[in-house]
């Protein structure tokens, strides 16, 4: 683990009009890590990711990616830089086929061979997508759609992958499958992962470090193991 964080939020204040969703949020993600942000509904988890991607612009503070400030950069220019988000609720393109969804992930790229190779790679990770490659995204099941959303993000060749609630609305067996693959992506491709989850147990088991977000503020920051055994966390988020 190098000293230079690949992604850093410095004193971010963000919100929607008069509603303040984030207050003074600072966090660091080092290359190769899996960092989890856990928190309850409405704590500002998704806003954090949307602020990193520039969909929501912060009122104060700065987001640094590889040491460069990126707050002023338009969201569509981030995937070429290696920063890509899998948005909450999957948001695949329902009337495009699975393959077209993946091709759109590689929208900024023009290396045809590389794109074909990466599509194959995604089909290897998620064989079910390969079976359904000509099918509309909207006809997939929830779990398959989540796989497609992750696959689509992988097509951008991300250095940092932001995952927003990948477990949302999925059956436990599918959730485990997806978390296994997330771990694989981190290990095999060396992709840094910032994971946002309500399911604290799962997220902390997958992560190396974790942040706890409460009503727009970071209240705790620690190694994932330590958080998992922290009695307060166990009480608040793990139902004990």
């Amino acid at each position: 683990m190098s000293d230079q964080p690949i992604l850093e939020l410095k004193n971010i204040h963000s919100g929607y009009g008069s509603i303040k969703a984030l207050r003074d949020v600072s966090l660091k993600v080092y290359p190769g890590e899996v960092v989890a942000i856990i928190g309850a509904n409405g704590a500002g988890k998704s806003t954090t990711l949307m602020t990193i991607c520039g969909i929501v612009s912060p009122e104060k503070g700065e987001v640094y990616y590889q040491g460069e400030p990126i707050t002023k950069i338009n969201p569509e220019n981030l995937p070429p830089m290696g920063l890509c988000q899998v948005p909450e609720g999957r948001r695949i393109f329902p009337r495009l086929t699975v393959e077209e969804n993946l091709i759109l992930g590689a929208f900024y790229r023009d290396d045809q061979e590389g794109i074909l190779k990466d599509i194959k790679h995604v089909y290897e990770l998620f064989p079910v997508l390969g079976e359904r490659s000509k099918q509309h995204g909207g006809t997939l099941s929830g779990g398959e759609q989540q796989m497609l959303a992750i696959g689509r993000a992988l097509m951008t060749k991300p250095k940092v992958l932001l995952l927003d609630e990948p477990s949302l609305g999925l059956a436990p067996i599918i959730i485990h499958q997806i978390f296994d693959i997330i771990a694989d992506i981190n290990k095999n491709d060396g992709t840094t992962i910032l994971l946002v989850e309500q399911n604290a147990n799962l997220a902390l088991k997958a992560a190396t470090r974790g942040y706890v977000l409460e009503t727009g503020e970071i209240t705790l920051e620690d190694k994932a193991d330590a958080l998992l055994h922290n009695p307060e966390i166990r009480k608040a988020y793990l139902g004990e």
Partner: protein
Amino acid sequence: MIQEFKKVWKNYTIGMLWLLGVLWPLLGIHPDGTITFQKTVSVWLYILAGTFVCLILYVINTSGNLKPVTTPVAGAARKIGSMIEVMPSWIWISALLICAFIYPLVTGRYATDVAITVLFYICLGLGLNVVVGLAGMLDLGYIAFYGVGAYTYALLNVNFGLGFWVCLPVSGFLACIAGCIVGYPTLRMRGDYLAIVTLGFGEIIRIILNNWMELTNGPNGILGVKTIGILMPFFENGMTLETLWVKKLQWFYYFVLGLAIVAIIAVRRLNYSRVGRAWESIREDETAAELMGVNTFNYKLLAYAMGAIFAGLAGAFFAARMKFVSPESFTFLESAMVLCMVVLGGMGSIPGIILGVVALIALPEAFREFESYRMLVFGATMIIMMLFRPAGLIPAKRVGKRSEDKE
């Protein structure tokens, strides 16, 4: 069978009585204040008889008494369908092209005129399809760009005597500029808000055309626009190049046919390109498209400009065809018409749009006698369409299949 009938007769009766209530004010109240019942009742009885036969057939069919007839018919239809699918598409396309080419030779002046109108609207429909069908933005002011194209050619021709072929690209270009000017501030909006703003901008352009007396001659329109001229070599005394004015409607038909074919090819190629995919991703989910690296604003503006170019080119041809332009040709009703054609035919589907245009232009021509009920029939058709084929007459071929299904 009696049971089936019991289920539907109540709705049928209510529907028919409602129709009588709608028909009577249309047919029974005359402008001079007289009130009659005779005609209403007779028309109503005809409709009643017709729909009753349909109802009886429907009842017999649902109760299963028609099976000996329907089963072989359905089998035959399926066979024909599979035969059609086996035939390569170029046979269809060339057959259609040949039909389109010999059409003006075998029909009269009136039929050719209708066909020219159909071709104009095909260009407009395809252009609007880029905006509505591909990029998913509801545009209610589309006809304004048609107007910009038509006025560009009319003004340049009447004031400066410029020829058609010089003005054609200028018309397309200016319509494109108008599209960008309108699009730049409006495209930050989404959905219903965009529809309202485009409606407003469409009206602004029409009102400018209507009120700028010095430039456009206002509601009187511009007269004396020259038709298309082509340079033809003549060999009578040596070789001389002379301008031949396309005065014959048949010849004009071929020019518009050419434009329509260019539009079809262009839209088809756009649809299956990288740009087309970007547009479709914006239609599906704008935020997700942005997160995937699609510059949504630029691509939306591009869709708007592309749509406007098609309208502008069609507009130049329109001015050359009519030899006259006035703001009356570019009202909101026209925008709504084009939108109806796109929706009726099937958004995003090129054959669908062509069929939609034919349905909405040619059929009203065929039923000219019923002109006063046109809007009534129009509304009824739209309702029936939305009930039975909500995705259009020929829906876009992006119907996904689960892999378990037969390919």
